[in-house]
């Protein structure tokens, strides 16, 4: 039976809608979700490829590079947690986790006195962020990062702002970028220098949109400009997670990892994000739906449901809570169910 069902794109924090095509119970493709207010049926390549996670999902748990039964693997995890001092156990939760999972992971970590870490692209929460419509309606948009290329459905709002007559000031790390192609002024400076140079141009209708900073100080400088801003995160629920767990800076993350002997990673690919020698950590345990660089270096991998197999909610970059329902049925365990098992 051929069906088309609504879901959310999990590939960044913009919160685009996505339709999935289901044929005989399996997800086989994506289809434009034109009714969705965030993206009107437009999805970037990452979004359209996001179903690959479902198509390549783990069938079995992995312990010491060998496939094994999930119940046995969870027992192994319990043993590892019981054998280490809680102060040396760190949980990394992720912007890939939905709101309900984040609450459960936090409660689990706190009840066991484990360290709890959350990394949000070295960014932080801003209480009052610009909406996407405000970006499109801005008189001036200050863009840090190649938003058109990396977060195209926010980039589209910047294009709309340009078409509405806005001035676009763009900062990027590379000499050329797609955002530069529509910008009135471009720069390859540091974020600090860029903010210093443009602050005289900022007015009440300006918006700063950014997906990176060089340091935590840059975030304070953006905040001090008293201008609407929109931090855009690399994960679907980073904004929501920030409301529950204080994020760690890059330096804080590295320091915490130095003091970690057992690392539990909940649906994150921290090995891809951070330049760190993870071989220094005695045991790495991943809870993830499909393979990534972190699962590849993990001692134990517990398969979890993909977002397509469960219901939950994400908070997108502009602070809207968006719910999703399971597109297909699944026998896999959710992270919440795994935590319940670990709690005994």
């Amino acid at each position, binding site marked *: 039976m051929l069906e088309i069902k609504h879901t959310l794109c999990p590939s960044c924090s913009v919160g685009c809608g996505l339709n999935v095509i289901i044929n005989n119970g399996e997800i086989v493709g994506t289809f434009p979700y034109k009714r969705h207010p965030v993206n009107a049926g437009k999805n970037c390549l990452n979004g359209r490829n996001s179903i690959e996670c479902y198509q390549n999902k783990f069938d079995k748990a992995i312990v010491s590079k060998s496939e094994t039964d999930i119940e046995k693997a969870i027992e192994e995890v319990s043993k590892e947690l019981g054998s280490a001092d809680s102060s040396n156990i760190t949980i990394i939760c992720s912007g890939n986790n939905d709101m309900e999972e984040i609450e459960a992971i936090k409660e689990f970590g706190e009840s066991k006195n484990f360290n709890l870490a959350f990394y949000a692209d070295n960014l932080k929460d801003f209480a009052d962020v610009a909406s996407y419509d405000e970006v499109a309606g801005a008189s001036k948009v200050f863009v840090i990062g190649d938003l058109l290329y990396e977060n195209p459905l926010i980039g589209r709002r910047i*294009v709309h702002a340009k078409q509405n007559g806005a001035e676009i000031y763009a900062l990027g790390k590379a000499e050329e970028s797609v955002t530069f192609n529509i910008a009135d002024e471009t720069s390859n400076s540091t974020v600090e220098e860029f903010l210093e140079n443009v602050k005289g141009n900022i007015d009440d209708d300006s918006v700063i949109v950014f997906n990176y900073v060089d340091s935590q100080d840059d975030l304070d400088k953006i905040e001090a400009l008293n201008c609407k801003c929109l931090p855009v995160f690399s994960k679907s629920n980073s904004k929501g997670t920030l409301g529950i767990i204080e994020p760690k800076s890059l330096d804080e993350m590295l320091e915490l990892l130095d003091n970690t002997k057992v690392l539990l990673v909940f649906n994150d690919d921290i090995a891809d994000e951070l330049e760190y020698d993870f071989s220094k950590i005695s045991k790495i345990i991943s809870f993830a739906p499909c393979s990534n660089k972190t699962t590849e270096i993990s001692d134990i991998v517990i398969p979890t449901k993909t977002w397509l197999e469960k219901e939950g909610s994400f908070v997108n970059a502009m602070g809207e809570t968006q719910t999703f329902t399971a597109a297909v049925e699944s026998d896999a365990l959710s992270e919440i169910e795994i935590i319940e098992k670990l709690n005994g």
Partner: protein
Amino acid sequence: MSYVLAKSQNDDIHKAGECGGAVTSILKYLLDEEIVDGVLALSPQNDVYDATPTFITESDDLLSAAGSYHCAPTMIGDLVQKYLFDKKVAITVKPCDMRAVEELIIRHKINRDNIYLIGLNCGGTVSPVSGRKMIDLFYEADPDDVVSEEIDKGKFIIELADGSEEAVKIHDLEEEGYGRRNNCQRCDVKIPRKANIACGNWGAEDGWTFIEINDEKGQELIDGAKKAGILETKNPAQGAIDGREKVEGIMIKMAKKVQDATYPTVSEMDEWSRCISCYACRDVCPICWCFENCELNKPYFKDEQNIPPTPIAFQGVRLSHMSFSCVDCGQCDDVCPMDIPVSLIFDKLQKKYFNRTGYVAGVSDDIKPPLYSPEKTEL
């Protein structure tokens, strides 16, 4: 080719369907008689702006797909070729759907013997998100209160939950940048004559559907549905036939005016400068069927190291390859994250090709797609 006026003999369908429910009745006949395995039609998920292609296998479920959904600009050709190739399927098709299916049949990606094409005359479609905004701005109504909509006599008409109606001239909406999608405004194929039958309200009396029977299979459909007791027909008066022809003529004339006005305005290189090479336009194109084997996936065309991408490496190659076959369905515009008017660029070139060769993608009887025809070499 012949004409009939038709309406359903089934009370529920008559009430739920447009113009007497003839289309739904014909689909019911096909399912009940097990002539097809299923029907691929639009059915709303959350509201009238949210219709998606739905594969219906039980005729009792057809009522969910009854009615018109102008705010659901979808395409179904790719679903048929990818997932329903071996099934006997009845498909409701707008002219651009029909053109896409026809091009795919030519490419042996859809088996004509397996499908029944129930054509729907089309004056254009509206994007759901901008459609809601349009209703909010130009109507005294909450978009959430709209239970149905239609395009008739040059107006976009909404019906509210309390039974009241509001109408605004499409011309006025389009003057303000709303109304029909851009490709629909310049579309000059309004009646899907390659479908087995083409149905609509142009020239029809109230409560009846005007049907143009385009081929033998179409005639068998009408005859079969009548014999099954679900469809009533009568001959249209000459005035109705003339009236329908007049409506079609006016719409084509308006479309050509839009073509003349918009083709010169597009600057390809400026528009392509925003391209992020995400392949969304290619992947949604109902005519592109190579998928993983597409030449643009080959290493020599891959442009991933170049940011921004070089427009000619993707857009230019695709334009030279596909524009002759463009059916101007506008799906590429709809899915482009950068709002590049892809279909305008492609349609502009298709029209140039038409002017040189007379080939209209999905309409002309030339059985060879342009890439395999002598005209390609000449060009």
